[in-house]
């Protein structure tokens, strides 16, 4: 709950952070919008988060199908591999990526971030989509197959519509996991490209102004909005 404090702070009139605020102002939001550095970081973050949502959801959904329905040995090992990015400390992952990315110019770079954030988001996608696939009765798919549908037809007209809400939820999780991600972003950002998290981290450390409160409020608003949409999607899934 202390998080909610940032909302009044971002509207505070004085430059010095204090509570309760002396007067209300939108100045810090305007400062944020006027600052090219913040603007660049925001656009960079949104681009990465959106692409991560698409790529991680596609990769994770295919992998979930293989894990839940596939016939390879070592299902548990596969599942463990898909979950591993949640277990490995992010600081270790960040340092490892910096080590490999830095010589080939992938730091501060869209592709580098896309790879890193896809790896970090895939566990959430696999958890969400696998759970939906396990609830989905395979007899339905078999019925489609026995009625003459091909595997692909059965997937697109029977399986996918049934798990679609879960896939959408997974995409939202992937977007948020990327947009809010801070530790790995700290290591693989550079002056050429940094995410909103990295920019915030620097400013909190060196330049604590109410603009951070304004940015924080916007980030919380985005999370809330997306979480709200997840609740709506979950409601539809349960109908």
């Amino acid at each position, binding site marked *: 709950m202390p998080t909610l404090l*940032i909302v009044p702070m971002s509207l505070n009139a004085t430059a010095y952070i204090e509570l309760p605020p002396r007067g209300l102002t939108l100045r810090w939001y305007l400062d944020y919008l006027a600052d090219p550095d913040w603007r660049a970081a925001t656009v960079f973050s949104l681009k990465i988060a959106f692409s991560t949502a698409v790529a991680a959801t596609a990769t994770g959904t295919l*992998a979930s199908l293989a894990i839940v329905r596939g016939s*390879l040995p070592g299902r548990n090992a596969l599942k463990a591999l898909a979950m591993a*990015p949640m*277990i*490995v400390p992010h600081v270790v992952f960040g*340092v490892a990526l910096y080590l490999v990315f830095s010589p080939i110019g992938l730091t501060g770079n869209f592709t580098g971030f896309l*790879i890193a954030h896809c790896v970090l988001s895939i566990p959430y996608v696999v958890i969400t989509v696998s759970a939906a696939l396990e609830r989905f009765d395979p007899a339905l798919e*078999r019925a489609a197959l026995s009625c003459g549908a091909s595997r692909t037809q059965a997937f697109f007209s029977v399986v996918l519509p049934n798990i679609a809400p879960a896939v959408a939820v997974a995409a939202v999780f992937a977007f948020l996991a990327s947009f809010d991600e*801070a530790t790995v972003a700290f290591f693989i950002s550079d002056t050429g490209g940094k995410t909103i998290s990295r920019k915030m981290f620097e400013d909190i450390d060196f330049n604590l102004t109410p603009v951070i409160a304004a940015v924080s409020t916007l980030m919380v608003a985005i999370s809330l909005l997306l979480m709200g949409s997840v609740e709506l999607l979950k409601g539809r899934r349960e109908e």
Partner: protein
Amino acid sequence: MDMSAAPTPGRLIGPALRLGAATPAGRYGATLTLVLLMPLIVLFSIGFLYPIARLVIMSFGDAAADLEQYRRIFTTSLYLGVLSRTISTAAIVTLLSLMFGYPVALAMSKARGRLALVIAAAVLVPLWTSVLVRSYAWIVLLQRSGLVNAFLVESGFIAAPLKLLYTDGAVILAMTHVLMPFMILPIANALRSISPDYALAARSLGAGSLATFLRVVLPLSLPGVFAGCVMCFILAIGFYITPALVGGPEAMTMATLIAQQTMVVLDWPFAAALSTVLLLVTLLVVLAFRRALSISKGINSVA
């Protein structure tokens, strides 16, 4: 389409089929499975396994199995101190999360209707709010001119503002706040799966509400407690953002030490060795408690 390959209608309603485990017809062939897995395998090989393998290999230096860096970690009291501080901080954070989280999980599993929604929101919204934002909120609260100091001075408890920020206490407080959802969700999951009939049975046999809780509900929720503790602990030992922002420069953790070695000191082989130690500790904890994690689906309940 070859109809002879389709299962007979009689088999379709069999219970084994509904479980979908024993029937080859509901499963994808090996080739298709591999194709579906390809994107994940390629991505994880390039973007996950290879970088971490490179880092681990680097920690051994040029010669094969050169343990110089590890000797340095385990013979320097400064670094041993960092390692033990990291582990003890994580243990305290886990314990505090359990103490504060269990009642919330209990309320979450019992609440109905609007109240249930409020509690779920109070747990889930922070989970999906940036760690940076939550750490920043604590900086604002705890700084010298912050709300907590202002309140204490105003109410006459203290004469001058205390140093609250950049202390071990601040790190523990903020980390507990950040990690609590990872404790609450597995416990709430475990509690929800306990049939209320057990508690009713205990009550009808004459147990008081405290005895019912201690001897029936609590033991049955232990798998969730274990899962939550393991999640909290492994996330806490690898935590970077909160200690880096809220903690003092002299109170380093493994994560902030690794960052300092790579970004400031530029001693990569040493940072690689520190990372390997952190990774090993994490994996050991996960392996030791693997059963607890899988029983209550500890990780799964977070998403």
